[in-house]
């Protein structure tokens, strides 16, 4: 009995990590690609390494203040030439590209100025070797994040490139 318990305990991380790989890869396979302008900087995480912390530079419309609540909000993304519009919509609204802010782990920070809407922040883990170059590019000019929008509403950042 004790041996079986130990065997299960050893298999637990293998099974969980394996199942998570399958789940996340399936979400990415079905995802649609979005290219969203960003502004950001480059800090470091002791566990997961270097990352780019950035704010999505999309045009927000609707009741964005609602996104600051713990339950988050839904954003409906649409393209307007080079710009991306993000409209705050109700969970049951019809939308082709819906982003679940809470599931996507997008941070919502209050805007700085009067009438300024909230900032939607996220991060992208990058390699130690590419981080300095990305940091230089972020300071030099406009950048955009290439993100995959999974059917369940998760916006998964994939890479950052000059805009």
């Amino acid at each position, binding site marked *: 009995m004790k041996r079986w318990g130990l065997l299960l305990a050893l298999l637990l*991380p293998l099974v969980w990590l394996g199942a998570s790989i399958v789940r996340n890869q399936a979400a990415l396979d079905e995802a649609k690609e979005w290219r969203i302008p960003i502004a950001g900087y480059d800090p470091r995480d002791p566990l*997961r390494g270097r990352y780019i912390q950035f704010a999505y530079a999309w045009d927000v419309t609707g009741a964005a203040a609602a996104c600051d609540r713990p339950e988050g909000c839904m954003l409906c993304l649409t393209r307007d030439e080079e710009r991306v519009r993000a409209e705050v919509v109700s969970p049951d609204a019809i939308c082709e590209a819906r982003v679940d802010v809470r599931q996507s782990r997008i941070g919502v920070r209050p805007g700085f100025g009067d009438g300024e809407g909230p900032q939607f922040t996220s991060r992208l883990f990058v390699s130690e070797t590419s981080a300095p170059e990305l940091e230089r590019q972020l300071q030099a000019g406009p950048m955009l994040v290439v993100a995959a929008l999974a059917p369940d509403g998760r916006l998964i950042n994939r890479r950052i490139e000059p805009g």
Partner: protein
Amino acid sequence: MEGLRHWGGMSIDRKLDDWVEAGVIDAAAAGRIRMFEAAQARPVARWALAGLGMLAVALGIVLVISANWDRIGDSFKLGAQLALLAGVGAAFWWARGGGRVWLAEGLLFLFAALVLGGIALHAQVFQLTGPIWEALLWWLVLAGPALLSGGETRLTGLAFAALALLGPTLMAADTVAAGGAWRLAQGAAMAVPAGLIAVSLLAGWLAPGFRLALREAGIVAGLGAASIAHFAWASNITPVQAADNAVRFVVPAGVALVAILLARRSDELPRPLRLPLLLGPVLAAALALAIPHADHTASRLIGVVVFVGLWGWVAQGAAAAGWSTLFAVAIAAIGLRIFIIYLELFGSLAATGGGLMLGGGLLVALSWAWHRIVTRRAGA
């Protein structure tokens, strides 16, 4: 509780020579004592060195993974990590079955480190953002059962204690502004030290060395947390904050009571130490955090009294139980706190001077009390 009882016979040879020279014991008795001590000796330094080496390997694994090698394909990295994890798990199974305890312990420690590495790699590949404590809580959930069911010595016991303390502590610190049910989650994090002691007393099927590490870590973390919490006496605690903290303390108080009940059934935690070690830290921290007060000289002095009361209670229990190392630590904590009492009275040269004189006088009184306890024990 080997570690908290005494540091071991570091200078026993020199002491024995002195005793023989002074005619307290004869050379034959000294020889017998040396043989006995040699048989009892435990290579604490060697174990500590091996543990430090394993910790360095574990940190190295995490840092190598955190470098996030973009020239290696994601599928290869994920596959290699899973294969390595499975290989180390299988090697642990083999070593444990063959009775190679220390090899098995090292491999289990490595297994736990690789689980953390796997979680970090996972986050990089699939861009799973979120606070770092979430990853550390997953580490506890995924590697904790293997450590609990497979660990046999202090090495893996301390690894489990570190897992149990790290993630919840960071979670509590990061979410402290959140109210509602988060307060109970923060309370659960505050209950981990007493919880570790409770598990060590409850889980008789675990190896003695593993349980010893849980108890030691629980005692050190509990007393350490209460000592840090006493600095809250030097800040404003509003009625709202005090009420929130009172809700948080429900969980640690409940777990401490359960641990006290479990300790009554066991002789592993001596009776004189049960209340000071299990109830004392919760009580001292609750007084500092769950009672509204302003930052004032009076509240700071109350904080000193509570701190000295806690450690004095621990010292009394340690003296009665014969835990000389814990007794010395408690007296040192009291001495240090009294020495810096002038910080509470700081305001002018006269106040600082008065505080130093008061602190010095109390230290002299403390050394006298220490002398009394030691001579009373020697005469008993």
